[in-house]
């Protein structure tokens, strides 16, 4: 169901400037460059939807987060200039742009990032948001003590801070209406943090102090290729999931959490696009469908043609429109881990992941990893194991088989920025240990219990979070 409630957002990008950000992600571009590109396209898309969206930057260095207050703006050009100036911590220390405790330029931070510092960093913005809703702090306190706004006699009755506040009788009507309009506009902004975390080494992030308040936050984890004994991407991801879920549930927000290997540019950009989803309108992550592959989807039959063919039948409404064959691809749960899928068309597993009706039968014992796309069952593993299935799937869409398509279009569409070796056709599902979602999250469970006690809405959101994780299954 499409929801139409809409309000402008204040989106705070919390960008990790750890030394890992300076590592190469793809040919000629470091990880931070890719993140900046993703944020830029995000910001431009958001502004196209609503001119009143605002953006701000928070940098994560070592164990603390620092808000750059001058970056809070609705001016796109201005914000992107500030974004362009960000540098990884090691390089930034040299340029005295951001203070940092330093360390080796190539070594990752040895201090665990404290999520409490992120909450503290955005505290001014949270207070500003509250003040915009309640113009006076005293009013807010009185409101909490003495109840809600009353609608009486065609107007509103609210607590006032002072016994005799300055009457506005002589204020010109046009200016008072402008002020009211500005206040109305300010009242509507909702705050959301998008965390772009980049550390693949321990220590994992933590929350050092007990927090009463939550934080509406989504997360995109950009990490090194998971390798046992080399890095701890899985553990870090688990900690991120737990922390982000816990804070989000306390704030009444159902967070989106995605992960991508730094070299998987297409997946990273795709995840960033998914984070565009407006919190008031989006579905829970567990229900989010993969984006429609317009190249694989068949041409739709028009309702008018159907009506002509079956004369006498009523024209079909939207609700009765026959679902295109392509819909079956994304109407079913995604069954592949993106860690097993490359970004090139030549990859058979990729085609089966995006273009074929998902084989939910593989959902029981998934071996391809779940990643953060929300579902278990590695169709890639199935496709790699039985390569004919992908060709059959491709034939269902009326396209040439993957190999032919790759031969014909591989040079045009193959991603030149993929990591070396990733372009090899038939990139097997099991060659990379995929990130496992945590099976049980004490934080989310505790938050769910707290949410159930606090109110039905929070409990519902907590249940949604645990359902998202429960649906992921295991490797």
């Amino acid at each position, binding site marked *: 169901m*499409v*929801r139409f409630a*809409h309000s402008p957002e204040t989106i705070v990008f919390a960008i990790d400037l750890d030394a890992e950000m300076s590592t190469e992600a793809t040919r000629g571009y470091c990880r931070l460059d890719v993140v900046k590109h993703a944020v830029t396209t995000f910001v431009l898309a958001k502004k196209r939807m609503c001119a009143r969206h605002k953006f701000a930057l928070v940098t994560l260095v070592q164990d603390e987060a620092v808000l750059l207050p001058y970056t809070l703006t609705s001016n796109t050009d201005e914000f992107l200039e500030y974004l362009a100036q960000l540098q990884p911590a090691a390089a930034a220390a040299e340029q005295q742009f951001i203070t940092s405790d330093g360390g080796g330029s190539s070594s990752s931070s040895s201090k665990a990032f404290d999520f409490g510092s992120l909450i503290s960093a955005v505290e001014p913005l949270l207070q500003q948001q509250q003040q915009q809703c309640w113009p006076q702090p005293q009013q807010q306190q009185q409101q909490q003590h003495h109840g809600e706004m009353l609608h*009486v006699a065609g107007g509103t009755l609210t*607590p006032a801070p002072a*016994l005799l506040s300055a009457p506005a009788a002589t204020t010109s009507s046009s200016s008072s209406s402008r002020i009211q309009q500005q206040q109305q506009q300010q009242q509507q902004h909702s705050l959301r943090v998008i965390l772009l975390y980049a550390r693949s080494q321990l220590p994992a992030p933590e929350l050092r102090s007990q927090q009463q308040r939550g934080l509406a936050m989504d997360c995109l984890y950009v990490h090194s290729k998971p390798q046992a004994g080399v890095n701890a991407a899985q553990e870090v991801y688990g900690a991120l999931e737990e922390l982000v879920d816990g804070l989000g549930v306390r704030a009444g927000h159902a967070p989106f959490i995605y992960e991508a290997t730094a070299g998987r540019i297409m997946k990273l950009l795709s995840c960033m*696009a998914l984070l565009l989803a407006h919190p008031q309108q989006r579905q829970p992550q567990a229900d989010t469908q993969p984006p429609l592959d317009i190249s694989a989807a068949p*041409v739709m039959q028009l309702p008018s043609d159907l009506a002509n063919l079956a004369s006498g039948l009523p024209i079909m409404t939207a609700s009765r429109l026959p679902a295109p064959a392509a819909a079956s691809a994304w109407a079913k749960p995604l069954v592949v881990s993106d860690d097993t899928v490359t970004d090139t068309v030549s990859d058979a597993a990729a085609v089966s992941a995006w273009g074929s009706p998902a084989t939910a039968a593989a959902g029981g014992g998934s071996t391809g990893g779940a990643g953060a796309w929300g579902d278990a069952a590695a169709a890639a593993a199935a496709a790699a194991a039985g390569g004919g299935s992908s060709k059959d799937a491709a034939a269902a869409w009326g396209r040439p088989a993957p190999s032919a398509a790759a031969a014909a279009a591989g040079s045009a569409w193959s991603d030149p920025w993929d990591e070396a070796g990733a372009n090899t056709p038939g990139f097997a599902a099991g060659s990379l240990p995929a990130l496992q979602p945590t099976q049980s999250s004490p934080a989310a469970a505790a938050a769910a219990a707290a949410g159930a006690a606090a109110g039905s809405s929070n409990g519902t959101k907590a249940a949604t979070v645990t359902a998202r994780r429960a649906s992921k299954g295991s490797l």
Partner: protein
Amino acid sequence: MEARCLVYKRQYANRSLQWHVVHDPCNPQQAPDVVFDDVTFNPLLDPLISTELVQMLSSWGSTSSSNPTSSLTAMLELLLSLYMQHQKEKIAALQDDRLLFELAMLEDLGCSEVLLSAAADGSQQACFSIPVEADLAPAQRLIDCLQQQQQQQQERQPFMLHVAFRVGRGVSSHAAPELQLQYPHFAEQQLPPLSLPSWDPQTSLVEYVPHLAERLNKHLQDSCPAAVLRFDLVKALAGVFGHPLEVNMQGSSAVKGSAAAGSSSSFAGTSSSMGRAKTFSSSSSSAVFQLQFDQQPLLLFVEMPPSFPAEAPLLLLQSMRRMGPDSCAALSNIPWSPRWDAAEMAARLFNFVKQQAPGILKDMEGGSSGAAL
């Protein structure tokens, strides 16, 4: 415990009322004090003091104990009617024939807000706010869509005609007044502006308002289906492209304007001297969907212009891989007919995007400006 002060705010004619209601929670039997923002209005000192008000305040303790809120509401409504009476007396004191005639017709018009205020140029304005009866049956679907959008029941507000007669030295009240039609919430951002009937110097409000109501009803019949079609199209597009990432039916650039009728022009997009009248925004509605083309992440923006469905929606494809001018491309020559229903529109747009996307992406690849990952 300290005295508690509440602020009563209400739009009244062309200004915002702001009265302070002061009461002592320790003495609920005691009637509250009210501080008015108009120094000329003091109902308890008026020689023709309202006995009803005196009686209400005297018996406050006994009547308010059961339901303080309803007692407060009754008191404020009485004060509002006294305030209106006060303003009527101020206007009558000007001894202007035209205004005296309009004052005499207030009850017939159902007018509940009258105000004598100062204009920016030092002259005075006699302002009347008159509800315009409109048949809302054509707008019911739109109201339902917007209630769903707001996720709450909105108090049903009427269409209000704000009229301001200039008075003062050198100004004839027989000159055409300034007129502005205030839309209720459901219409202010969804419906195009209404061209008001022109003002005849010989006419009066009691003749003008029914004429306006007739034109308004026609306007609702013509424009509400188009407004509802926007919502229907977004739902239909969600059925073919997937759940949208964001939908903004309120438009991003609210155009501050008013439907004002002067002596000659039927519609003037000038900033209103009425000030407080809510303005409508004739802006676009838009939705964004995430797509892929051969695993390239794309964004599809669908923007419905103010003249939709007469004008086709604008389609824009943005490549997440690219930056700069080559990252976006508008789809042109969209096959279109405003006669199609939402399902047909959505299917046609889907097929068009599918057909055009390869060529557009190829052009993007061939573009030399901007960066790409």
